[in-house]
């Protein structure tokens, strides 16, 4: 087994364990910490795939900014343990098998559809430069649009969360 494959399995297992823990934990702050584990593991996988820039923004934006926002809101709302409600019979006997079926189907078709594909070229270190070139040439309009989106989202968040006086 090559080192790359070994690293893949380590981080894939970490990501899946984190995701399972996100579902199993009852306290939202534990779920948030599990999600951070998933995101860091995914950043490592992006590095394995040769996407350094995406790995960096995964850590900075996701694990940094978004998760801090989540933890902050959990703290502000003083969110406690999830109330234990009984799963309805429908959820237990139909929901659980159906979600397992959905996952298995997705995995199976993705596996089948791509088993013949090549693994692509080996890593090249100029990827980030190519990404920047694409962002500021072909996708420059979209890039500017996302700037407006961020501005609107910021205004929306402030307006929504403000206390009525």
């Amino acid at each position, binding site marked *: 087994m090559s080192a790359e494959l070994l690293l893949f399995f380590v981080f894939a297992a970490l990501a899946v364990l984190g995701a399972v823990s996100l579902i199993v934990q009852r306290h939202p702050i534990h779920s948030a910490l599990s999600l951070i584990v998933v995101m860091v593991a995914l950043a490592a996988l992006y590095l394995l795939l040769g996407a350094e820039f995406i790995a960096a923004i995964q850590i900075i934006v996701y694990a940094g900014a978004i998760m801090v926002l989540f933890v902050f*809101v959990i703290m*502000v*709302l003083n969110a406690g343990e*999830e109330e234990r409600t009984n799963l309805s019979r429908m959820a237990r006997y139909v929901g659980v098998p159906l979600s397992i079926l959905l996952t298995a189907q997705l995995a199976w078709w993705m596996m089948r559809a791509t088993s013949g594909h090549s*693994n692509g070229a080996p890593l090249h270190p100029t990827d980030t430069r190519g990404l920047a070139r694409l962002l500021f040439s072909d996708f420059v309009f979209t890039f500017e649009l996302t700037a407006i989106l961020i501005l609107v989202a910021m205004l929306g*968040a402030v307006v929504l969360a403000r206390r009525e006086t």
Partner: protein
Amino acid sequence: MVPISYYLVLSAVLFGLGVVGFVFKRNIITIFMSIELMLNAVNLAFVAFSRSMDHLHGQVFVFFVIIVAAAEAAVGLAIVILIARNRESLNVERVNLLKL
């Protein structure tokens, strides 16, 4: 060399776990985190395809997905704060105005 299908299967599993969390969790913040998990799973598929086809467009798309996720988190958490303030609970079963 890791086959690209391994990454895609991992992405499918993470997406499925996100769906399970979205459907089964009661806490609105955890439901929101499950959505983020699904977005992350899709991002992984994008990056894997971008590598397999040796094309950077997939990574550009992931960049935009992350931006939109950040905007969504800001607005969504503001809504969560509003709901918590109005209903005095984070349980989604208390948010039932549209229920018959």
